[in-house]
Each structure stands twice: as C-alpha cells, then as structure tokens.
C-alpha cells in the first residue's frame, strides 16, 4: 500500500450531544480511489463535512493527519488551500457572487498559499472554458451567480468543474452521484476519472454503487453506526448492492 495521505484515528464526533461518528478509523493512501458507502444516517456526510472543516460539530476525541499535519486544528480555508476539496452533497446557491470570480478567487487563494503567482486572467478563462467543455456546461454559466437557479444536476457538474480547476490533493465527493440522470452521471464520472493520478486521492462517498460502475475504486469501506464496519475491494460494493446494508450491520455485530 502507498504512503497514507489521510489518517483518521478513533474519530468521535457529536452534534447537539448526539454521537454521530464513534471511534472511526480510516486510512487513505496517496494515489488511490476509495469509496465510502453506508446506509442513510450512518454519518457519511458528517465525516465529509468534519474533514472539510465545518465548525458546527463537536470533536469528542480522535485525530486526523493530512499530509503530516493535524487537520482538525486547521481552519476550513487552510484545509482547502492545503489541497483538500469537498464536493458538496447539496451545493448552496449564492446569488450575487459570480461563479467564475469565486473559482478564480479559490484558485488564487490556493496558489498564494503555495507561494505561486496569481493566475493570469486570460489563461484562467481559457482553463475554465476547457473544463466546462469537458463537463458539457453551457457558456451562460460564466455570467451566473454561484449555483444560482441551477438544477440539481447542474450543481453537481459545477462541483466537479471546481474540482477540475482546483486540482486538489484529496477530493472528498459527497453523494456526487445523487440526483443525476444517466447521461449526467456519465459526464460527472468521466470528469472525476480524468483526475485520477498517482499523486491524488479521491474519496467517493455514496449510498449506491452505480457511480462505482463508472469509476472503479481501489478500496470500498462501509460506514455504519458511526464507524467503518467493513472494508474490501470493488466486489464489496456489488455484494452490498445485492445483499443490502442490513447484511453488513448483521455481520458487523457478529464480528
């Protein structure tokens, strides 16, 4: 196995006094694609949000190392600049903040943090246009507010567009496949697939295995009751699809 990029140890997280993640351990090696699956309410989205730095959660105990750093002590914007990207399950609409400006500001924040010069405006636009083409996004997108009036599918494409432009070291994609029709799913999956590289790690958080027919994961983990109850190769996803999550829960209890 490759060097770990992200190591989660004994992570226990609560919201309003209720424990959501309970002693979770997970290691994501450099250059691999992992899938995190689990029934609704198992804590998948909580994990994604906690890793991205959302502050409404209480970290009860545990540790997360990201590229050798203590991730939980870093504010959200610093995590993003260090190369962590969260693709939101429900991307928020921000009317009045232009899509392209946000994207440019995000890219420049990252570049500045790494000691690189700000991106040239002309080159930036060319880059965005190229990635938009890949995501089959309409030109009108350039002038619109962030996710403003976007359909569910357009919002997800926009998340992947940001991912393609920002080229993070670790991409956590929370239910990116939900709400997509078959054509959009293929576009999104193809977009993610282009990012697959030896120096990039991707965590696909998903309820169903259908995204995994387009993107083959190196490992599959099952989250239930706030911790990883089972890990395996890609065939685990197929087995889950056939047997359902009750099977995993039952097995977890036995184990």
């Amino acid at each position, binding site marked *: 196995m490759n060097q770990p990029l992200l190591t989660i140890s004994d992570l226990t997280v609560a919201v309003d006094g209720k424990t959501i993640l309970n002693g979770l351990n997970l290691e994501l090696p450099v250059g691999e694609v992992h899938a995190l699956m689990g029934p609704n309410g198992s804590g998948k989205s909580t994990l994604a949000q906690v890793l991205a730095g959302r502050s409404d959660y209480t970290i009860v105990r545990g540790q997360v190392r990201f590229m050798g750093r203590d991730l939980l002590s870093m504010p959200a*914007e610093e995590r*993003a600049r260090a190369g962590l*990207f969260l693709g939101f399950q429900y991307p*928020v609409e*921000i*009317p009045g*903040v232009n899509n392209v400006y946000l994207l440019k*500001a*995000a890219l420049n924040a990252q570049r500045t943090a790494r000691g690189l010069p700000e991106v040239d405006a002309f080159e930036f636009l060319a880059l965005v246009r190229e990635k938009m083409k890949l995501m089959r996004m309409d030109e009108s997108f350039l002038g619109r507010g962030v996710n403003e009036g976007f359909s569910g599918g357009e919002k997800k494409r926009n998340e992947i567009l940001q991912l393609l432009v*920002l080229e993070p070291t670790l991409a956590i994609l929370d239910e990116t496949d939900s709400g997509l029709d078959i054509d959009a799913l293929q576009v999104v999956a193809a977009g993610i697939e282009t990012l697959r590289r030896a120096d990039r790690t991707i965590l696909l958080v998903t309820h169903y295995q259908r995204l995994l027919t387009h993107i083959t994961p190196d490992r599959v983990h099952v989250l239930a009751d706030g911790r990883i109850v089972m890990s395996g190769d890609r065939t685990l996803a197929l087995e889950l699809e056939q047997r359902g999550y009750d099977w995993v829960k039952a097995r977890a209890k036995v184990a």
Partner: protein
Amino acid sequence: MSSVPALDGLQAYREAQQRVAARLPGGTLWHAVRTEALERLLQLGWPTARDESWKYVPLRLLEKRVFEAPVPEPLPVDASALAQQTLNLEGASRLVFANGIPVPALSSAAPPGSGVRIAALGEELARAPEWVRARLPMPGDDPDERLALLNLAFLADGADVRIEAGATSAPLYLQFVACGNHRASHPRILVELEAGARARVIEQHITLGEAETFSNSVTDIRLGPNAQLEYLVVAEPGPRSLALGSVRAALGTESRLLLHRVLFTGLLNRCSLRADLDGRGAAIDANALLFAAGRGHVEAHSVIRHRTTDTRSAERFRGVASERGRGVFNGRIVVEPGAARSESQQSSRSLLLSESAEIDSRPQLEILHNDVKCSHGATTGQLDPNMLFYLLSRGIDPRTARALLIYAFLDDVLARLGHPQLRQQLERRISATLPDQQRIEEFL
C-alpha cells in the same frame, strides 16, 4: 447670528425665521406663506414617538443639537473636499447647492439637452412669487408632512426642473452640500416630466468634512402620461450630521418611476417616500438600500398608493446594520377602492452584522379592492452559515467571504441601477463603509 435649538422648542424657529425673513426672496406674499407654514407647524407640533413613522426616531438626539438658521447666501465650499465625495458621471449636467443655495461656479452651464429647463427656485420666487405659490401647496396635517412645513417655512432656494413633452434629458446631477458647522438647510427640488419625457436624475446629499449639519430636503416629482424617470437619492450625512428627506411623487397615466434610495449611515438619516399612482397603468419600482454603522440611525419610510386601475408597484428594501447601527424600514402599500387589476410586490431583507445591530422592518399592505395581486415578504438575519462555509471550503478567507456575502445580499437591488458608471461608484462607496469590503474590490 445666534444659535437656535433645531427641533425641540419649535418656538425658537419663529425667532429664527424673523431673523432671516427680510433676506429671503418672494416679497410679502412669500413672507406670508412662510409665516403660515411655521404657525401651522407650531400649532401641530413636532411628531412624537406615538406617530407611527416617528416611533423609532431618536427625538432626544435631535433636541440636543443646535443649528443656525439657514441664510440665503451660500457659504464658501471647499472644492477639494467636495471633489472627494462627488460622483463622476460622464455627460451629466451637475448643479451644486451649498446649504440649499445654488453655487453657479461649481455647476455646469449648459442644460442637459433641448427641452430641458432648469431654474433656481430662488430666482423664480423673486420673479414670479405667485406662480411658485401655486406650485407649492401648503402641506396637510399628516405627521409625515411636518418636515415639509418646516421646509416651506424656510424656503429660500432649490432646483426647479422641467422636461418638456417628448424630450429626453442627459443625466442630471443635483448635489446638495451641507457645510459650515451647526448649519441647517432646507433644500427644495421640483422635477416635472411632461408627457412622454425621459430623464435620469441623481439627488445627492453630503456633509463636508467634520461639520455637524442638519438638512431637511423636500422633493416633488411629477410624471405626465408615459413619462419615464429614473431617480436616485443618495444621502451620506456622516456620523455627526442629520439628513431628513421627503420625496413625494405623483405618477400619471402609464408613467414609470424607477426610484432608488441609498441611505448611508449618519447620526440620523431618514428618508420618507410618498408615491401616488394616480394614472391608469402607472408603475413604480422603489428600491431602498440602508446602511447603519457605528452608532448611526437610518430610516427608510414609504407609502405607495394605488389610486386607480392597472397600477403596479415593486418595492425592494435591503438593510445592513453593523456595530451599534440601527435601521428602520417602514413600507406601506395601499390599494385604494377602484384600483382594479393592480399588482404590488414588496420584499424586505435585513442583515445584521453584529450582536448590537438592529433593524426594525414593518411591511404593511392595505388592500381595499378585491381584484389585485399583492405579495410581500420580510426576513431579518445574519449571514447564511451554509453560504459562508461553502466559500471557506473553497479557500476564501473568512473576512473576504463575509464581505462577498454582504455584497451579494445587496446585488439584486444594485443590479437595477440603470447607469453602469453610477452603479460602480456606488458599489465602491458601499465598499468603503462596510466591514472588509475593500477585500472584494476586485470583484466589483
């Protein structure tokens, strides 16, 4: 020249008026009009906290301030200080008024187009007192008209603008400068568009330097059939001054008024609007942006009356209060009996940027006719934590993220300004007054 209390002990105004009476234009007729207006004001008294639209006004604050009676001669204006606060509008005709009195040296010579007539009200008062009298009726008993009474009681000068039928005016920039410490001014603005005329007018009220000033302006807008006017009121009294403004508009058949009010923070900045949709098919878009910072108190009031059929109004209020700023929005829409097929929309959104900030928003709909479409909505809150987190998760620092969201909150109203150059300059002014807005200059 002695000092008089501004708003308490209204009696002091009688003395103040007598002191300047002989120097004001309009002869014995106008001496009588001013006296009548003042006596009426003294009889009715100043509004109190019991009057709905004066409920939140810190009257005590007013009573502590002392302002000198307005005089008909302009004070010298510091041109470089003025330049800093001047909007740069290409192709616009600019008229500068110091404490309500025209300053020809700082104003454009040429009118903004053929069919556009601009006169100084002071000259008209001297030349044709009766004619002016006929155009400025005595205000009624409504508490909201007390300011108009005070304005009339000290009427010295102002701007009288008429756009002839079918004519189109280049932008007209009326700049009212309050200067000299403890000075009062009562500017009067008349804007009349005849049938089918079109114009864009900017009315700006500013205070120069650190002066403590009191400005009480009254604006009368009349739109003839099919006239189209975009009217912008920008009031920036600053932390030590008071700006009170009354805008009244009468809209004729199929006329359209796009009105923006941008009220910056001040010791007190209060702007009231009364719009009467008198003609069939008349339409008003009334946008108001309010910024209350420091210990500032800013109020936007409006009463829009649908008086006949097929009239349309859309009112949008956006208020931002920071530090210990206090804002008030009081918006009343009345659909009178017989105003069939009228449409009215009102939205009020307030953003509070600190624990001590406060905005009171009172949208009111009075529908006295059945066949109408009306909607309104009001929200007050802080920045949306989901939006904030989304921006942070993209690497934007928290201060810039907050600034972006404040700007975004205002954007749907700012976007309605029809003049890009003007919009850009207002955005920069807004940037300068809100926390961390300088961080998003590149976005503007």
